[in-house]
């Protein structure tokens, strides 16, 4: 049962204004609004014209992955341990390891990744693979322009991940 005194909220309003005061207030506020919007024109645009201009990314931005090689020997850092695949919450990394041939080494370790695939259509760019890797073989790059027409094109193979990525995104400078 509702009690009128308790259940009904009494809205306290200010003293009722005369129509003239209301009209004056409306007119004044309209002028203030016009001033506000005109100030936006004076300020200019804040739009970034995307394909031509790009927002610079921070150094720790997590974009597309990169696989690395040793700069001096040219051997792959990845030893095919599959820790990245184990750490991956989206289960998008597939690693098939193989024994290194001592005559023709691929990686610095005992084994190497014969198959290393990242399904970028499933990757959530969490960076756990980078953290899990004991040899810093995989890092997150800065590229975020990865749209493609078919899903199979988004499965990146080892060669694609090893290749020097196109630097399509500007890096944010210190203090920018």
């Amino acid at each position: 049962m509702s009690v009128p005194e308790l259940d009904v909220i009494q809205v306290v309003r200010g003293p009722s204004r005369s129509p003239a005061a209301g009209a004056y207030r409306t007119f004044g506020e309209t002028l203030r609004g016009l001033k506000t919007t005109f100030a936006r024109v004076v300020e200019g645009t804040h739009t970034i014209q995307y394909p031509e201009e790009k927002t610079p990314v921070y150094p720790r931005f997590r974009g597309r992955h990169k696989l690395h090689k040793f700069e001096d020997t040219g051997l792959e850092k990845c030893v095919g341990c599959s820790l990245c695949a184990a750490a991956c919450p989206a289960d998008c990394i597939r690693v098939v390891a193989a024994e290194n041939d001592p005559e023709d080494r691929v990686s610095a370790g005992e084994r190497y990744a014969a198959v290393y695939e990242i399904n970028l259509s499933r990757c959530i760019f969490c960076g756990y693979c980078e953290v899990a890797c004991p040899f810093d073989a995989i890092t997150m790059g800065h590229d975020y322009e990865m749209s493609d027409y078919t899903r199979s094109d988004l499965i990146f193979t080892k060669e694609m991940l090893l290749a020097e990525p196109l630097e399509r995104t500007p890096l944010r400078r210190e203090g920018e």
Partner: protein
Amino acid sequence: MIAFADVNFYESWWVQIIKAIVIFAVIFGILPVLTVYERKLLGRFQHRYGPNRVGPYGLLQPMAEIVKFARKEASRPTTSVGWLFRLAPALAILTAVGALALIPWGGVTTIFGQRVGLYGIDVSIGPLYVFALGGISFYGIMLGGWASGSKYSFLGAMRAAAQLISYEVSQGLALVGVIMTSGTLSLVGIVHAQQGMWYIVPQFAGFLIFMCASFAETNRAPFDLVEADAELVAGYFTEYGGTGFVAFLFSEYVNMMVVSAIAVTMFLGGWTLPFGIVSPVWCDPIVVFAKMMIFITFFIWIRATLPRLRYDQLMSFGWKVLLPLATLNLLVTAIVVAS
């Protein structure tokens, strides 16, 4: 031949046809640019660029859109009333264009030995003609909304009926003040009567009332309840696509131009320049157009500024504020003119 109205200045028939074509061509050349102008200006008001991809500065955007609209399938809902559904946009655009004939772009001049008035026609019932066409243009909106057989359209049409009729009263009364001061119903005569002083000075209250009512009459923000995109999808033209939609859209822009031109003629001295500057006759249309652009810019500025009114606010503003003010303005003007 039936005389529709007394005509103050009359040219031979072929001059009139050429004038009609020129006015039509120029206005419909300007219209697409106006749509881009509105979108770009609205963008600036919101920190963005507006269309800038098609052509230089996005100027070819309307071309792309016209092609897009023209290629659309002409579909209509099964609940719609066929021929009325097709008639409505035609009615809207025809009445809007018809009002353009009245707008004085300049005085009488001599072109190739012919005395030509730089306006469609100068009738002795100028504002009445404009209001008559405005009255018919309601039918375009109401039929469009009703014949669509859709609830959103119907709501928009009902709002349009109430809104346009209420605000037309104030709009008309605001103009009566000017007509009484000038003592003529010819729009060209009214411009000539303003040689000394523009009517915006003695009729400032009337000017404000006219502008407020014009925003409602042209269904522009903050009185765009008729098409209220947030509530009614698009109001009366929800069900229209392709060319029907373009007709309604363009009729809105033409109405905006007509209202601006009427305001220029009635309150800003038409083609006359202030401070006694006398411009050559070929400048007249440019002067009128420049003044019109001020109003159109103001229309867009207001659209970027004010939120839409609630329906009861709209009605109470129209009947309780605007109409009494317009009547008071009329009364005061009458007393001043008579004494």
